[in-house]
């Protein structure tokens, strides 16, 4: 008896045996740095480091802004995904590629682009200033930066789910007399719920880790724009122990978020 498996029933047919080796190396490549970091944590002072005033302010700001930008991603991204998945008009392929730009753009470049849009001398900045709104270097700027980089995650994930679900259920619902908004609420969104949830989680995680666009566009003011990644970066210069402790905190928060939604969704 060779290679006994713990789970019975399905067999991995057509999976070459050699694939396990690079797969295991890949897994280690992800895990090992986290372990290495954990070994550097000074556990005796850990609690003190992560509950310092600046750390608590940064964590709170990170959670608040990430939640806000996830909501913004949902409000903007769900309709975007619907249009991309369901409509056919000239130029839609180009549009689909453009939506992906923030995904491949270095975040710093995104931050500069946002600065020239919403900054004081930016494209919309002057108009906003007349209206009494100053966006750059405020908490709003943090949310904008995070939304900018996180939006493609939600759109791509949801668009894929919408394409997989297909439009046939929607056609049936319409033929039963349901208006488009009713179809969206009672049929489309429930059907793509797993895709929507994973898209929202990915967006939240991406927003939580956002650094480059934030520091460029929002700066680093404690309690206003200094999120946890920025705090970690600053602490690394002066207090490496604190930086490691906060990094571990960020890992724990990210893992908790993903684990919570995984359990709700069940196996993929």
């Amino acid at each position: 008896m060779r290679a006994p498996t713990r789970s019975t029933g399905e067999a991995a047919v057509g999976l070459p045996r050699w694939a396990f080796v690079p797969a295991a190396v890949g897994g280690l490549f992800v895990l090992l740095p986290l372990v290495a970091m954990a070994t550097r944590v000074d556990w005796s002072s850990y609690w003190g480091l992560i509950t310092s005033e600046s750390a608590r302010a940064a964590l709170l700001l990170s959670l608040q802004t990430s939640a806000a930008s996830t909501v913004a991603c949902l409000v903007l991204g769900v309709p975007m995904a619907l249009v991309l998945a369901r409509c056919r008009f000239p130029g839609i392929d180009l549009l689909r590629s453009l939506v992906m730009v923030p995904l491949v753009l270095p975040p710093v470049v995104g931050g500069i682009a946002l600065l020239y849009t919403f900054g004081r001398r930016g494209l919309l900045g002057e108009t906003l200033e007349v209206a009494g709104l100053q966006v750059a270097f405020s908490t709003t700027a943090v949310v904008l930066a995070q939304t900018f980089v996180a939006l493609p995650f939600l759109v791509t994930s949801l668009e894929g789910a919408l394409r997989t679900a297909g439009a046939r259920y929607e056609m049936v619902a319409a033929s039963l007399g349901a208006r488009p908004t009713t179809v969206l609420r009672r049929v489309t969104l429930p059907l793509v719920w797993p895709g929507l949830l994973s898209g929202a989680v990915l967006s939240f995680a991406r927003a939580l880790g956002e650094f480059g666009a934030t520091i460029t566009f929002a700066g680093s003011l404690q309690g206003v724009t200094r999120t946890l990644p920025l705090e970690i970066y600053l602490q690394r210069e002066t207090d490496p122990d604190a930086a490691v402790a906060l990094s571990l905190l960020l890992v724990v928060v990210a893992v908790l978020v993903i684990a919570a939604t995984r359990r709700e969704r069940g196996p993929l």
Partner: protein
Amino acid sequence: MTLTFAATLPARGFDVELDVAEGRTLALLGPNGAGKSTTLGLVAGTLRPHDGHVTLDGRTLVRADGGRTRTWVPPHDRHVALLAQEPLLFPHLSVRQNVAFGPRSQGARRRTADAAADRRLEQVGLAHLADRAPSTLSGGQAQRVAVARALAAEPRLLLLDEPMAALDVDVTPELRQTLRHLLEGQTAVITTHDVLDALLLADEVAVVEDGRVVERGPTAQVLSRPRSTFAATIAGLNLLAGTWTGDGVLTTTGEVVRGRTPPDGIATGTPTTAVFRPAAVAVYLDEQHGSPRNAFRATVRSLEPRGDLVRVRTDRLAADLTPQSAAELSLVPGAQVWLSVKAAEVDVYPA
């Protein structure tokens, strides 16, 4: 006329004119790709015609000329319900919620909609499954729920796109009988390439070939005297007329034919017809004793090739045999044979 339809789609070589009167059922017969589904799509609002119009109860649903749409009623506002090959029950809703979807979407209160759903489920004989999830139903049950759901929306017109095509052969007779009962008085268009569907469900038949209606008329007439090639290939069902005795059809020649009856039963003495396919008929040289089959004595008139089979025509019924069995039986015109058909293969319905 309740439905009038005239539409062209030059890109698909489609040019069809049809009408269906109030409460009648029209069957669109034809090979795959003939334009049956295109017709339904144009009525339901998933396709726009290049030229033409669709009118339902005097209301124009779509009108187009030269590729420009002049009038367009969106699908949800057409009162046209669509039943597809697959049931497409919403997986996240219970059976009752699925059936109540139409009334709810049209503004009914939950309690009213649920009551309507339960009534419709009762009609398809599945009231006991109301709280189940669609994933727990069999294919036949799911399709009957889909029928209940379509009817609960109280459509002015019901479109059925090959509703039996995706089902197991042994559950189709039951669904066919259910539909026969429910389509009474309902204006409907059904596409099929099964002649039994046309015969049992439709008042009229239109044969569609290459995007054109090639033949049109009352079902019995088209099937008994087919003029198009397609109608000729699919027709040729065995029909035995008689009266219902309570457990069988007493034919004019004195035999009793047993078969599947409608769920609501037939009153004794009603003129009744028994229908079955030639492929369901077995041929023997001697009488078969002690079997629950229907048996008929007959004289062979002719044998003709029919695809991989041989069609044996007798003085009253037809049978399709493999060439091997025809040869083993040494069938020749004039031979005396016994024809036998299982009761489960016979559909019995009031004439």
